[in-house]
């Protein structure tokens, strides 16, 4: 019984982080209808930035979060403005296929860039905060798990409120639903895209820092979590913020509870089996809205 409870908590804790890894991807896809294949690589970048902030600058991992978020926001804005936008504009009247190919190239470029910059070794954050635990009876809660759970839920909630109640959030939603209708109402869709992409990466900055506390980074870590993020976005429903968190929690739970009963490699297969089943019965995702 204890081991089930422990697995339940472990699943929720990592699932919450998976959820906010997927959040930015969902936002970008929901608004721009472009698939950012470099998403996992940007996560890897965020993890290295966190690693360097703790090792080179000697910052506490949690204190590194605002710094990483700021850098990722600027990287996101710049990527959209100077790299994706020129490609996107050439394809304004058709499906943005070249953007897809471009982000795939960016993925491979970033992975190899960091192989050169950081070497192939696994890195864990400096400082011993990540090893701290709360003990409650037979259950063990690590500091990174608790922080990950709390911060992920908070970030999701903040994004929901931002999208619902601010002028910018409204503009982002409107552009995602009908770009041309939004533009004739005075909304600059290019500016909305830059902001959406930047916010997507800023959230990824939070996720990267939290993930580094429970998972070591290497230059190709993005492959694993990038694919997982795609699954979560589709599970939860593209563009649905709460859906991304729910999808993340689901994947985390399947992974940890599955490992209680099945060999670890099976739980990965189980994630994909459930993913396919959801796609079959509810193609719009668990929390997605059906689109005409």
């Amino acid at each position, binding site marked *: 019984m204890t081991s089930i409870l422990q697995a339940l908590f472990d699943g929720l804790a990592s699932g919450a982080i998976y959820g906010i890894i997927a959040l930015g991807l969902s936002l970008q896809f929901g608004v721009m209808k472009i698939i950012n294949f470099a998403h996992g690589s940007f996560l890897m970048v965020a993890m290295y930035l966190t690693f360097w902030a703790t090792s080179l600058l000697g910052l506490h991992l949690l204190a590194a979060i605002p710094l990483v978020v700021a850098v990722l926001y600027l990287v996101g804005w710049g990527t959209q403005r100077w790299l994706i936008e020129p490609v996107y504009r050439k394809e304004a009247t058709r499906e943005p296929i070249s953007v897809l190919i471009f982000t795939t190239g960016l993925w491979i470029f970033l992975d190899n860039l960091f192989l050169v910059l950081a070497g192939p070794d696994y890195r864990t954050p400096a400082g011993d905060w990540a090893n701290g635990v709360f003990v409650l009876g037979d259950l063990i809660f690590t500091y990174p798990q608790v922080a990950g759970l709390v911060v992920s839920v908070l970030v999701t909630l903040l994004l929901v409120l931002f999208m619902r109640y601010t002028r910018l959030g409204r*503009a982002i939603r409107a552009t995602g639903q009908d770009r*041309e209708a*939004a533009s*004739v*109402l005075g909304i*600059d869709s290019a500016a909305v895209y830059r902001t959406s992409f930047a916010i997507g990466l800023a959230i990824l900055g939070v996720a990267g820092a939290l993930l580094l506390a429970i998972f070591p980074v290497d230059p190709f870590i993005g492959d694993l979590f990038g694919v997982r993020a795609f699954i979560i976005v589709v599970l939860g429903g593209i563009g649905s913020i709460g859906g991304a968190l729910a999808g993340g929690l689901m994947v985390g739970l399947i992974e940890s509870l599955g490992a209680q009963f099945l060999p670890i490699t099976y739980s990965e297969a189980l994630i994909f089996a459930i993913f396919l089943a959801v796609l079959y019965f509810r193609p719009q995702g668990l929390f997605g809205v059906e689109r005409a």
Partner: protein
Amino acid sequence: MLEIEGLHAGYGDVRVLHDVTLRVDEGEIVSIVGANGAGKTTLIRAVMGTLPTTSGSVRFLGERLTGRQSHEIARLGLAQVMEGRRLFPHMTVEDNLLIGGDILRDTARQRRNLGWVYEMFPRLRERRTQLARSFSGGEQQMLAIARALMTGPKLLLLDEPSIGLAPVMVKEIFSRFPGINAEGVTILLVEQDVRRSLSLSRRGYVIEQGRVVLEGDRDFLLGNEEVKRAYLGV
């Protein structure tokens, strides 16, 4: 107020508009009428910058619109009610309206405009928390018009407001235009319902195959034999 001169526009290699020249003066209601496929929607899109123009010029209050982006054109005081209404389906009625008012960057004015359009269409106030996609065609058209008015436009471009609506609804919607006009909003009305739109207008233009073939004031056009035969079924 709006001056279009020698405008050519189209989609890719397909030319739709040929040398269109027309104008709208401040305070007027002007109709552009013509059959389906005559180029009426293309004309509106060329004005709003959602379709690039090949040559010619569009000026609004002396400012050149050609080459500008849609959101910049909207910020000059033009609002378009798009064909097919194009609401934000997964947003509430009130969010659809607030988006229109966001352009003002003035919360007090936005609130005032919201009160104004709710007064004009009380049904929207009653249903302000509902999703736009749950609406009937007529209610959606009201919302589309109200959303455009939220921007506080000087010139309102109405693209086929009667399309897909029951006759009683069309009558109801059209009955609002003189009131909107009286509040200082100049109206350019693009319609297939020739009699109804010309009756409301001071002047009108008839477009056929992308060219202006006839223009004049209401009584001239309604009395014209060609117009009677081709559009009024007389």
